[in-house]
Every structure is written in C-alpha cells, then in structure tokens.
C-alpha cells in the first residue's frame, strides 16, 4: 500500500496536472468530432470529395481546401527547404566562428515575428514583389502552361505558398542545424583524410549521415505550413466553392485554416458552422499524422546522436 506521505501526495498531484497535455488533445478531438457529426451525417463522403460550399442548398465539401492546403504547403517546401538547408550548412560548416551565433539569432528572429505581421507585410509588400517580378514575367512568357495561366493579381496561391516558405525557414533550418552539428567529427575527418573538398564532405558524408533527421525537419516544416492560418488568410484571396479548386498558381484559393478563420464567425446555419468544424477535423487529422511522423523521425535521430556522443 502507498503511504500518504508528502512526497506521494506531491507526486500524484503533479502527475494529475501533467495529464493536462492528454486532456488538451482529447478535448480538442472531442469538440471537433461532436461538432462535425451534423455535417458528416448530412453530407457523408460528399464532405471530403465535394466542391460546393453553399449554405442555401446545404451542400458542403472540403476537397478544394484540402488541395489548396497541400498545394501551398508543397510550394512552401519546394522553396523553403533548399533555402533552409543552405542556411543550416552555411551556419554549421562554413561561416566564420565569431559570426555564427549572430546568423542563427537572425534566422531565429524570423520565428519570433507574429504570423499576422507576416500577413500584413505579405498583403502590402511581398504581394507586389511576387506580382511584378515573378507572376507577370511567368504569365507573359509561359502563360500557355495551365499552372501559370490566368490573370495574376498577387493575391493568390503562389504568394501564400511563398510566405509559408519564409515562415518555415526558421523551423527547418534550426532542426537541420542541430542534425548537422550532431554528425560526429570523425566522419568529417575521415572524409577530409581521403582528400575530399569541403563541399564533397558536406554533400556526400554529412548530409548522407544526417538524412533521416533532415527528413524529420522537413516534415516538421510541413506541419507548420499546413497549420498556419493568419498569414495565408490575408494573402490567398479566400475563394470558396468550386472557384477555390486550384487549377493555376495565379488564382485565388483557400486552405483549410484560412477557410475557418475567414468564415466561421459569419456562419448563418447550424449546419454551416458544423461544416467549418468538420474542416477543422480534417485539418486536425492531417496535422496529427504529419506531426507524429516528424516526432518519430526526429527523436530517433537525436537518440542515435545521444548514444554516439555520450
């Protein structure tokens, strides 16, 4: 039998408080599941595969927003990951020692900027950079490719993807930096010893050794990109219904989080608010899946590192 000593009481008490994490995640899941039963029972599979978003006919489908979320995140990864890797490599392997920390601080400051300020900047500044230097040239010369067709405005899927790319850089870069620093020096020394140049050491040994950790960093960045709300809401143009089906990069679109942020408080019928909560449930499912994969990848690598270093 457990004695009622101060120590045992304290331990039990904080064990209960520590359950807050479990409670939070269960509470969120519970609310989303019960909140969306209405729309799921009315629309069924149509809710995932449908394109309409129409309170008048009570038909709701989130397919365009799932695709919008995946497309913006894909742009973010395509642009953000190479940049982040370059930054991580530069900071760990190339930068002169005294300014290394300054560079990492600067990159981490990117993570400190609130997402609504990214949105504001995207709406009034980045939008015009993207429009004038990327979209108009691409549209003029390569407009026959469906991806670059349409009438560029700067408030569209491409701008949303690019702002996400900037926002995932601190996450991907700082995790990759840790992974690259965790590569044992003996690997580098061995490679230098057989006459490899610095870049060859990085490319064929360091990156190779840390590849599963870097993969974890990328997935972590993907998780951020998928869940990001405000910045995307402010620059993506907020199309709803069949118009939101992404066919071109220069078209107004919508992601799952921006759909909720934009319309949830204006919902007119119970079924419509249930549909927004349903969109939240789909988002939760995608995000949980990605976060769990990332967690497994990253912890596995850092465990190996712990074992090797200590």
């Amino acid at each position, binding site marked *: 039998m457990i004695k009622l000593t101060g120590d045992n009481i304290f331990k039990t008490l904080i064990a209960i408080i520590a359950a807050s994490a479990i409670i939070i995640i269960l509470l969120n899941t519970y609310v989303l599941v019960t909140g969306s039963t209405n729309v799921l029972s009315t629309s069924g599979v149509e809710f995932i595969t449908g394109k309409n978003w129409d309170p008048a006919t009570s038909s709701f489908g989130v397919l365009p927003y799932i695709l919008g979320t995946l497309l913006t995140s894909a742009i973010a990864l395509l642009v953000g990951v190479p940049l982040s890797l370059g930054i991580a490599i530069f900071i760990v392997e190339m930068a002169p020692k005294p300014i290394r920390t300054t560079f990492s601080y600067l990159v981490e400051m990117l993570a400190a900027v609130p997402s609504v300020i990214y949105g504001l900047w995207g709406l009034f500044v980045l939008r015009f950079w993207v429009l004038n230097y990327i979209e108009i040239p691409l549209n003029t010369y390569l407009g026959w490719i469906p991806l670059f067709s349409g009438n560029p405005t700067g408030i569209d899927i491409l701008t949303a993807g690019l702002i996400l790319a900037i926002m995932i850089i601190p996450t991907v870069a700082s995790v990759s930096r840790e992974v690259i620093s965790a590569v044992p020096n003996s690997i580098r020394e061995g490679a230098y010893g057989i006459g490899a140049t610095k870049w060859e050491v990085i490319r064929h040994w360091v990156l190779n050794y840390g590849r599963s950790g870097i993969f974890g960093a990328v997935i972590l960045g993907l998780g951020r990109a998928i869940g990001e709300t405000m910045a995307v809401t402010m620059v993506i143009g907020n199309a709803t219904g069949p118009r939101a089906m992404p066919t071109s990069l220069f078209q107004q679109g919508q992601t799952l989080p921006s759909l909720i942020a934009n319309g949830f*408080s204006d919902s007119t019928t119970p079924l419509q608010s249930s549909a927004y909560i349903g969109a939240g449930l789909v988002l939760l499912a995608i995000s949980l899946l990605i976060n769990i994969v990332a967690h497994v990848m990253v912890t596995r690598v850092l465990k190996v590192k712990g074992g090797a270093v200590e």
Partner: protein
Amino acid sequence: MPLSEKLNLHSYSLRKFKNKFFYVLCLICLIIAIVPLLSILFEVIVRGAPAINWQFLTGNGLRNNIGPAIQGTLILIGLTSAIGIPIGILTGVYLAEYGNNKYATWIRTINDILTGFPSIIVGITAYSLIVVGLTGTFSPMAGAVALAFIMIPIVARTTEESLKLVPNSVREASMALGIHRWRTTLSVMLPSAKGGLITGIVLAIARIAGETAPILLTILGNFYFFQGLNAPIDALPLRIYLSSRSHLQIEQTQAWGAALVLILIVLTLNICVRLASRGRNKGTR
C-alpha cells in the same frame, strides 16, 4: 555507382570550383532568408511610426486608436499566464523529476505534438466549449483558455529542460539535509533553475502575444476599453488583422501602427531573454 565516380575525381579544378560555388550558394540562401526579416522591420517602422502618438496609444478604438487593443493584449497575457504558467511548470516538474516511466514518455510525445498544433483548431475548441457552451458570449476568458492550450506545452518543455540542467549534486545536498523530495523540488530545484524558467516563460508570452488565430474566434474585438470578463475584448493581433482588410487609408495606418507596437513588444521580449541567457551561460563556464 561507386563514390569515386560520383565525385568526378579527374578534374581537380572543377572540384575546387564546385566547392566555391556552393559556398556562395549557401551564403545566398542565408541572405535570401534575412531580406524578408529586414524588409518586415523596415516597413513596419516606416509605415507604422507616423501613426504613433499619445492619442493613438491611449485613445479608444472609435477613432482608429489602439488603446483598447494594447490593454486587451496585456489582459490576455495576464489571464493566460495565470492559467498556463502554473500548469506548464508543474507538468515540466513532473517530467523532469519523475519522468522515467511510460506515462511521462506519452506526455512528452503529446506535448511535442501540441507544439506543432494548428492554432485555429484551439480557437474552435475554446469557442465551442466556452463561448457557446459555458458563457454564451465572446470573452477574454475564452481567449485566455485558447492561448493557454498553446502556452502550456511550451512552458512544460522549457521547465523540464532547465530542471535537467541543474546538477544532481544540488538535489543530493538538499536531501542529505533531511529535506523531503517535494520540498527539495519546490524550494531548491526550481530556484536553481530560475533563469531557464524565466527564459521559457518570457518566450511563451512573446509567442502568445502575437497569436491571432485562437483569439479570432473567441474574443471578437471591441472599440471600447475592458468591460468585464464576460464581454468581448480587443487585442493587438486581432486589430491588425481586422484593420488590414479595410480599404480606408486611416485603418491601414492603424494596422501598421498596431503592428509596430506588437513587434516592439515581441522582439524586445525575445532579444532581452536571449541576451540575458547568453550572459548567464558565459558566467557559468
């Protein structure tokens, strides 16, 4: 393909050129990432500074001032901290002191997952539970609960990490004096880890001060100053979002002014904490 072929060992000058080329490429990556940061700071200062005056900072929202938004952000920070800091710290204490079991591993994993949780979902949950279910109004309480969901995992994690940095000898010394384990934890371990704890808390506050999605669905916004815990309230990030959607020049200026105040708060907290913790690390070495 064997490595020797991949490396193209025949041409030494080509290999040297590649080495230089990728050095420059990586440097360019870094510059590309820093340009947005500098541009954001530049634009926020240039466009926001003209809006700033005493009236703008303290007047009520009817004439596009941001007094209620500043007050609301401070109230939300206070309420969220009151909920989030004790729970977060005690969770961290449990993980650090008794964390060698399966239950703790689970909590650690879930905490990690919660750190990457889409913040809009937290908003839906607080909206459904509190705004619809409990009080029937938009309120600072609902906003604080949503923000606490974000704050708790961050504080728990930094608490655990800083407690683990306290040398075991400190704990042993205290227990050798006959002090109970719980008393050792609260009165010896926590004060020894004080620096790390404060760093974690300040960073968490900086994070929630800028969060918009969770409060978008829970506090609604208000042109007037604080009207009680059961009435809608304003906040800086929310005001930036709402004003940025306007076509009126005066409201856009308000958004930039609010952004300047918010970024000053957030970056000051971040930079202070980083400088302080750097000084401390040097001291112990």
